[in-house]
């Protein structure tokens, strides 16, 4: 019984990590209908950036991420301005293939620079710290922080989306690109801002990815799939839906692992397929697309 209760609690906490993966993907899709196949690799890239800064400057990862944030924000802006804005249009193929190419470039670039060795962000005692919830269930401090950060990121994104001029521009371009342009919105600037913002979320996701487990240059695509599944399970267009989707995915994985550790990933995928068959628009859909 305790095992199952534990699986539930751990699944919800794991869902926080997946929600962080998914929030950036959801944001970009929401604003510019871009599905970024390099999203997972960008998370891994950010994790390596934090690792590099932490090692070079002798910082704790929690501090290093603050240094990495502005750098990644500008990287996101530049990526959108220089490359991705050129791919957007009626045709679906260019953005998909360009981001797919980007994914291969990032994976192999990281492999060249950092080798295929597993890495981990080190932050001392907090990594292994945990507290008991009673009933024989204990939770780690890092997983709890992950979930809290996911909630904070979503509150932050919702604030921007619904309470700032930038968010109004985001929603306007999302609703009707041409009309937004006619109203004087500089779309390529807005898209670049959205990508910069997505990179901020990516940096936070990368921090917890690196603190919770080992990472190496090859694990990006799997993170993309988890992020994507969380977005679809939750339903397009709602950040809270994305959080719920992440938690459903996390629960499916830990419950599956409870039956057989080898089934962890597979049961996550199967949960996604079940949702897709039964509720193709996700559990909490918001937009039509």
């Amino acid at each position: 019984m305790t095992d199952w209760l534990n699986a539930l609690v751990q699944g919800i906490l794991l869902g926080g990590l997946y929600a962080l993966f998914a929030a950036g993907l959801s944001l970009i899709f929401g604003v510019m209908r871009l599905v970024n196949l390099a999203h997972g690799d960008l998370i891994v890239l950010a994790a390596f950036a934090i690792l590099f800064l932490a090692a070079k400057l002798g910082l704790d990862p929690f501090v290093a991420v603050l240094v990495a944030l502005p750098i990644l924000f500008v990287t996101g802006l530049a990526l959108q301005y220089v490359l991705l804005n050129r791919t957007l249009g009626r045709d679906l193929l260019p953005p998909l293939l360009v981001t797919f190419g980007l994914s291969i470039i990032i994976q192999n670039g990281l492999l060249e620079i950092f080798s295929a060795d597993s890495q981990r962000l080190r932050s001392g005692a907090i990594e292994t710290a945990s507290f008991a919830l009673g009933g024989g269930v204990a939770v780690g401090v890092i997983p709890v922080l992950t979930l809290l950060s996911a909630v904070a990121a979503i509150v932050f994104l919702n604030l921007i989306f619904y309470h700032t001029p930038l968010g109004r521009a985001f929603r306007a371009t999302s609703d009707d690109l041409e009309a937004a342009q006619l109203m004087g919105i500089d779309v390529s600037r807005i898209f670049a801002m959205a990508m910069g913002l997505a990179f901020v979320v990516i940096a936070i996701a990368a921090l917890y990815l690196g603190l919770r487990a080992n990472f190496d240059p090859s694990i990006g695509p799997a993170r993309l799939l988890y992020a994507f599944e969380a977005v679809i399970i939750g339903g397009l267009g709602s950040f809270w839906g994305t959080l719920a989707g992440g938690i459903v995915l996390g629960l499916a994985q830990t419950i599956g692992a409870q039956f057989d550790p080898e089934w962890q990933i597979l049961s996550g995928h199967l949960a996604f397929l079940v949702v897709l068959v039964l509720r193709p628009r996700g559990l909490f859909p918001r937009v039509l697309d």
Partner: protein
Amino acid sequence: MDDGAVQPAHSFRIETAGRASRGAWAAAALGILLTLVLLPAFAGRNIIQDLIFLFYMLALAQCWNLLAGYAGLISVGQQTFVGFGGYLLFALSLLGGINPMLAIPIAGLISAIFALPTALVVFRLRGAYFAIGTWVMAEVYRLVFAQFKSLGGGTGTSLSPSVTSAMPGIEWVRTLLDVRTPVARDIISYWVALALMVGTLVFVYLVLRSRRGLALGAIRDHEAAAAGLGVDIYRTKLAVYIATAAVTGMVGALIYLQKARISPDAAFSVLDWTAYVIFIVVIGGIGTMEGPVIGAVIFYLMQRYLADFGAWYLILLGVLGIQIMLFAPRGLWGFIAERYDLTVLPTRRLLIVTPKNRNQSKK
């Protein structure tokens, strides 16, 4: 009374042939085919093995081109059927004792059967989300096959020599060309690969020239308009998805018969069976039949001379792919065809308008 206003002043005819004479192309194609069939008599084993690789990559590229270039189904999950076909070959020949040569078409058939439920799920996703959905599917298949302990589980398994030597014709080739058994096996595989590649080309060509091909071209150009003109989008896409799954499954079976060793990670590799294939189609020219042929040859040369650079080689492929997509989205063939108005495999329909009566139309 003005006759010209009542009767059409022009007559219309629809042609599929290109500008180049068809007889010359057909003769050239036949000549190339004959040379390729007879090649094992002269060529060394390395060339034969290289050509097997070229042929199956080309067959995969034609399938992906039909999916993405015509039916608008941008799949990043075609490794699903390569791996599935490969594993079916192992299951049928290792566990079922079926001759591997017979196992290849059976693998294609079973791939098609499994493609139907797979399609019913992934078709619920549109456009870009379809792409990632197919990728998830490939992962599901990979993880499921890793559970089959009788096929080696997560580490994979090898074909026993008794299975690989059971291919019909090995004895015949051995005595005819005076070669050792492994070489004879490669030659048989080569012919199978050639047959599959040519079969795929002919199949895609016939599909594109058929009525259904016209529907596909319409979907490629504008899906909503095609639907408005009465094209059953869903059924057309489903048919293409299942047909390409069958071909991809057979190619997968052949690939792993040739490799004689399979593991879930290799068989369902997105890089080997989808990224490379996309690169071939994009660099050659998507939405044309000639493009993937050119792309496959370029890819083969790059793979042969640059693959030793490892990660840098893959970075180069990524950069090249992005450049092509941004600056020459119709690929190398698109560039050539536009410049010289050339078509080798004419699948485009041309409207030929001839005035009926010059005097009347002048009036």
